[in-house]
């Protein structure tokens, strides 16, 4: 049962509008408690923090659109961060960035491709592959780091990551570029349409001659690449590399993707919604700080995060969308 195109559009528009409204309302409420919330510095900080999440979310969104899922991105980020650190830190490998960074990007893409290969040709369900990678990569990272944190990254890199160009850290620019490229990919290229087709109805797509395997391999590799990119632009911002990087990133990204309106059954979703979802989820932390919630309140932050995720996700239904499309088996 397909909703007609006109009301389909209406639902979409309603969703993003709903998200914008929610963000505006929350900001206004917080602003009445503490007007400092609306200052330029706060919002630049929020933007900078959104950068790595939005980069990865672009990839995971496409994965979910094809009907799969990827919950290994956080552990992959830690793994890549450790390898990158071991390569280019002056206390360790001391390779130049010219070698180290492309190598990291390549490695991320390769791991993504392996994931994709296991899902497609290995026919292992993506939840299993990425669950296994989640644990294995985290273990490998800890093993590699041997109990020591890594610091001593090259100055140019940390400077770019923290201060960047034109006043904004390089992560923001890279994120903007990735968003534009992904949007062009989705709406402007045949590849993008095929990705949606595969998620929408794998059976029909197959009949139409689309290779679901190659498309899924692509989206997983793309996600791996984007995770590496996010690692490269964001991790140098941190004081040091420890094995806890990227913890809970997967939950955050999947939430953003779902909040943004991407259907878990595949075939539907748009980038604007996902980016708004990223903004909404990243906003929670400063919102809580500015709301003057006091000590007891601080201890509820995790609960608020969790409840927020719950509400955001359940309202996926309330927005009028029924995932009445079952995966064709």
């Amino acid at each position, binding site marked *: 049962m397909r909703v007609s195109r006109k009301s389909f559009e209406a639902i979409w528009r309603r969703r993003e509008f709903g998200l914008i409204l929610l963000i505006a309302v929350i900001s206004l409420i917080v602003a009445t408690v*503490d007007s400092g919330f609306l200052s330029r510095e*706060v919002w630049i*900080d929020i933007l900078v923090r959104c950068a790595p999440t939005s980069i990865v979310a672009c990839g995971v969104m496409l994965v979910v659109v094809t009907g799969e899922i990827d919950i290994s991105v956080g552990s992959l980020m830690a793994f890549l961060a450790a390898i990158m650190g071991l390569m280019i830190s002056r206390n360790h490998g001391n390779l130049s960035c010219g070698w180290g960074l492309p190598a990291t990007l390549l490695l991320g893409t390769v791991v993504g491709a392996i994931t994709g290969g296991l899902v497609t040709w290995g026919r292992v369900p993506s939840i299993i592959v990425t669950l296994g990678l989640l644990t294995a990569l*985290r273990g490998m990272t800890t093993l590699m780091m041997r109990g020591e944190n890594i610091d001593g990254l090259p100055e140019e890199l940390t400077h770019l990551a923290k201060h960047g160009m034109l006043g904004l850290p390089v992560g923001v620019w890279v994120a903007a570029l990735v968003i534009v490229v992904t949007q062009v990919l989705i709406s402007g290229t045949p590849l993008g349409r095929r990705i949606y087709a595969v998620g929408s109805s794998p059976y029909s797509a197959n009949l139409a001659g689309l290779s679901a395997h190659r498309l899924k391999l692509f989206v997983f590799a793309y996600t791996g690449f984007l995770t590496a990119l996010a690692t490269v632009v964001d991790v140098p911002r*941190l*004081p040091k590399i420890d094995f*806890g990087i990227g913890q809970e990133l997967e939950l955050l990204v999947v939430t953003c993707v779902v909040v943004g309106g991407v259907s878990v059954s595949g075939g539907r979703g748009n980038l604007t919604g996902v980016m708004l979802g990223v903004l909404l989820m990243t906003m929670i932390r400063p919102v809580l700080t500015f709301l003057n919630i006091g000590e007891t309140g601080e201890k509820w932050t*995790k609960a608020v995060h969790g409840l927020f995720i719950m509400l955001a996700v359940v309202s996926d239904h309330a927005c009028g969308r029924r995932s009445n499309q079952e995966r064709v088996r």
Partner: protein
Amino acid sequence: MFGKSLSFCLLSTLLIVGCQRGETERDLAATGKKSGSDKKITICLLPKIKGISYFSSCFNGARQAAEELGNVELIYDGPTDGDPKKQAEMIEQWTVDGVDAICVAPNAPDVVANAMKEARAAGVKVLTWDADGTQESRSFFVNQATAQSIGEGLVQAMVNDLGSEVVGDVVIISSDATAANQNAWIDVMKPALQKTNLTLATIKYPGENASHALADAQDVIEKYPNLKGMFGISAVTFPGAAEAVEQDGKTGQVLVTGLSTPNDMKKFVHSGTVKSVFLWNTLDLGYLTVHVAEALVSGELKEGATSFTAGRLGEKKIVADNILLGDILIFTKDNIDQYDF
């Protein structure tokens, strides 16, 4: 049904056969528990979290002690995610393996208490280090510093470094809301702060996550225009807070202090964002722990003793089961480069 019964029968038969084999060979460790000086003593060092530099440096000190003593086989293992339940499980595994001593740095004393008590009942010597367990679960506690001295020391350092006339807000950046050590220090810091000119604006709990600590610290700097200082009371969140101050260009306006290993904070101390870093000599802590464990196993150290000589550290006082390492170390610009851990 046929296939399932088959697997089950196969499995049970082989299990029984396998167990027969296992039981004819005597458990190595059972014989190893003799206090013969020709046999190596197995000492297990259990940190709160395996893989963070604080505990890795304790392990380095412990390794030194093991080499010095010569008859010690040192096992260093712990949960990489800091899960106290895993600590309890490891203790139980080691008990079954028949080790001689287990040194526990408990993340949650109540969770590991039962496992430790059972280990003691099985003849394993159990002591705690870095953080204490319940009274009945261990023979001794190798204590590096009391919560009192840490909490008050931190507040004192902030007041000294800022200048005692300075009036303003301070914020504590802790780690998890459930972290026992941090909560104990906070309980000491709150009343201590009330006696100063500084007001505690809020306490943030970003968890053991440097990225969240950075975010929280940045938000706090924005929110409180009168912010004069931040306490980063965990080795993961302290660098995050200092980084936030530097990235926002507030070096000199907001002072950060806290607990961390010197290596992680060197650059911040040199840039002036941080004036004092609190810790103690973690190498010595590991060293002392292994010496105490070895002495317990060999019988040199008995319950109720009042002092103990630990290799190069000399004589250490024992007060009510607590073996005191010594004083807190404060790393400043002048001395931080002398330390490498």
